[in-house]
């Protein structure tokens, strides 16, 4: 029965990918495909952050470190080494794993706010490094001159549709993998640690080691988000490593909710749409967005997806059904979702 739930996830993923692949054919709009590409970048990134925030209970302010690292190492690999795209991708993930290993080993010892600030510090160190190391990174101008996109396995990312498919594919694949990880025994061990580290220790769990593992995994996926972004803008910019990127990811998971697996993706969709619509309608982007944020934070006090999921739970509970919402990807809400 359980293996079938893995199967179910795979099938859902396949269907979603098929739908995404078909979308441009029924609705041929460059604007729409650009949106999906950006959604891929931020969807992967935000979900990877939620591995830490939502599942491991590690509130990181510095996850942008890996977004920037991904974008730059991929861009540089393509520009300087002239490798193939899959090779550059593999290289990027490898590098992120190493960096996450080192940074994480230092960070995860600290608790709550101190962890948050230390991660932020490391991200800003990378940012300063990018700015200062002009010969390699192009400093504040970013990686200019475009990221070459040589064809591989018959895929040529110079063609818009191919780039679209590639990004959508990465999105679905990464989500599927992360979904599997949070549903693995390891994923549930993270939940134990998130809920009650002391009790987890008394069950003989090495809390530090598990947290580090989570940090590394999240970092690796986060960097893939950066890769997609660098493909979209065909370059990389210091902004990608600035704390505001972490801020946007945080905004996304708060907007969408931390307790449903797809909450962060929902948040990414909402924030990107908000951004696109509001910038279109008014010059006073900050004013409008700010008010919307307050409306959310003070009104719902939790992510939209969480809010709906809890309504759903209450309704089904009222119906006397004792089991969890059968909705796919449903997660028991954790202590983080406000109170």
């Amino acid at each position: 029965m359980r293996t079938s739930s893995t199967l179910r996830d795979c099938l859902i993923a396949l269907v979603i990918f098929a739908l995404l692949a078909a979308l441009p054919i029924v609705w041929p709009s460059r604007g729409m495909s650009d949106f999906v590409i950006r959604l891929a970048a931020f969807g992967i990134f935000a979900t990877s952050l939620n591995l830490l925030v939502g599942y491991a209970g590690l509130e990181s302010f510095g996850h942008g470190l890996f977004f920037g690292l991904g974008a730059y190492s991929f861009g540089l690999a393509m520009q300087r080494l002239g490798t193939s795209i899959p090779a550059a991708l593999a290289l990027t993930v490898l590098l992120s794993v190493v960096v996450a290993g080192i940074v994480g080993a230092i960070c995860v010892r600290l608790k709550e706010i101190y962890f948050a600030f230390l991660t932020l510090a490391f991200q800003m160190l990378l940012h300063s490094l990018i700015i200062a190391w002009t010969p390699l990174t192009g400093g504040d101008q970013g990686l200019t001159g475009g990221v070459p996109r040589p064809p591989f396995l018959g895929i040529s990312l110079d063609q818009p549709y191919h780039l679209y498919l590639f990004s959508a594919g990465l999105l679905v694949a990464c989500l599927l993998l992360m979904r599997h990880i949070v549903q693995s025994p390891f994923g549930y061990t993270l939940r134990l640690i998130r809920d009650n580290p002391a009790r987890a220790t008394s069950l003989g769990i090495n809390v530090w080691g598990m947290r580090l593992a989570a940090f590394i995994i999240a970092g690796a996926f986060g960097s893939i988000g950066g890769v997609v972004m660098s493909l979209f803008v065909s370059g990389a910019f210091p902004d990608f490593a600035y704390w505001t990127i972490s801020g946007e990811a945080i905004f996304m998971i708060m907007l969408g909710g931390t307790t449903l697996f797809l909450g962060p993706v929902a948040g990414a969709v909402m924030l990107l749409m908000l951004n696109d619509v509001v910038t279109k309608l008014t010059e006073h982007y900050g004013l409008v967005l700010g008010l919307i944020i307050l409306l959310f934070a003070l009104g719902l006090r939790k992510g939209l997806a969480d809010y709906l999921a809890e309504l759903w739970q209450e309704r089904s509970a009222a119906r006397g059904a004792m089991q969890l919402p059968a909705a796919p990807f449903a997660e028991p809400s954790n202590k983080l979702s406000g109170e």
Partner: protein
Amino acid sequence: MSKRRNNRRSRREVLSGAVAAAAVGSFPFVSRAQNKPIKIGMPTIQSGRAAMVGSSSRNGCLLEIEKFNAAGGLGGRMVELVARDTKGKPEEAARLSRELVNSDGCEILFDSESSAGAFAIHEVAKDLGVVVMHMNSETSALTADPKLRIPNAFRAARQGIHDSIAAGSYAGKIAKAKGLKKWLSCSPDYAYGRDSTQLFLEYLKHFQPDVEVVGEAWPKLYQPDYTDALTKILQIKPQAMYSCLWGGDLTAFIDQSAIYNLFAQMEVFTINVADYTILTAVKNLPKGIHSGNRYLSTFPNTEANAKWAAEYRAKFNEFPINWSWENATGAKFVLEGLKKAGSTEAKKLSDAIRGMTIESPFGADGTLTMRAEDQTLVNYATGWGQTIPTEPFMPEVTPVDWQVIYELETAWKKKNNYI
């Protein structure tokens, strides 16, 4: 306007925003246009510290576009400017440029972003093949580097290398006359600051070999406090200082230098003081700062220039600034190009603009040229002078000879293997 509006629901907020945008973005004549308007997309910075870029850039363009439309547009087709806020984020600049072309049906792009944004938009233009006019980026490589060059991208801004040569030749003369040997630089710590400074010193030495650089300070971009840099400068006690700080950083730097009485202790050469943003913002502007002109209604001292400035002030009730004239120029080139090509088709339009020379109040000799070889603006009025605390702020401006600029620019390109 909107203090009360805050408390209302955000949906209304968006709506009223929409109204505001309609008022700002699209202009009366658009509705009167019989045929489909020619839409020009303008990704620019309208929020945050650099919001000035957005307003002055858009105003500069509007002036030209209004004239064009008033004169009947392109065979009845009116031009409509669609400005969007990139918030200074390169990825937003890329995203918006694509959206403007792909979704909003813009046929031309005015890049009124900062340097980093300019490169992002440049990539989009390479990808989509639309004509893009870079309005504000002064980074030389953008047009000088053949690896970056594409047939449909032009630059209507002054260029770093030109400024440096101009500054070097002027500073060289002064250095010779006043015997200024010990020089120091204090520039913002990012690409523009570093390139500009390094090139300036290079050309200073070219024009006046026996100067030595005794120190350098690199404050961060947007750094609020320059005390650390200032005390360092006062430690070294140079005879002259060069700085290419700009905008709010420059005013803060001037205010803070003033209380250290710095301007009395050395000759100060700045590229960016002679622009009305600075000249009008700084209270009790120190006397005798050497500066290149960014925009002055008195230089070139022609009727056309004074008239343009007056129009601008009348319409937007603010001083025109460097970005204003650069954008006005870029817009003019594109609009003239449209007339000449009689079409918005990218290939035709680019061919029309490439190498074009137009009448302009900002030209060294009343004309401006979009140089064919590297598709960048040349022959704009550029000169140096010294400040006084009150209008006209810089009474005498010595123009720099473009022949000198051309020679040294070519040498510089050779050195960088650009040609």
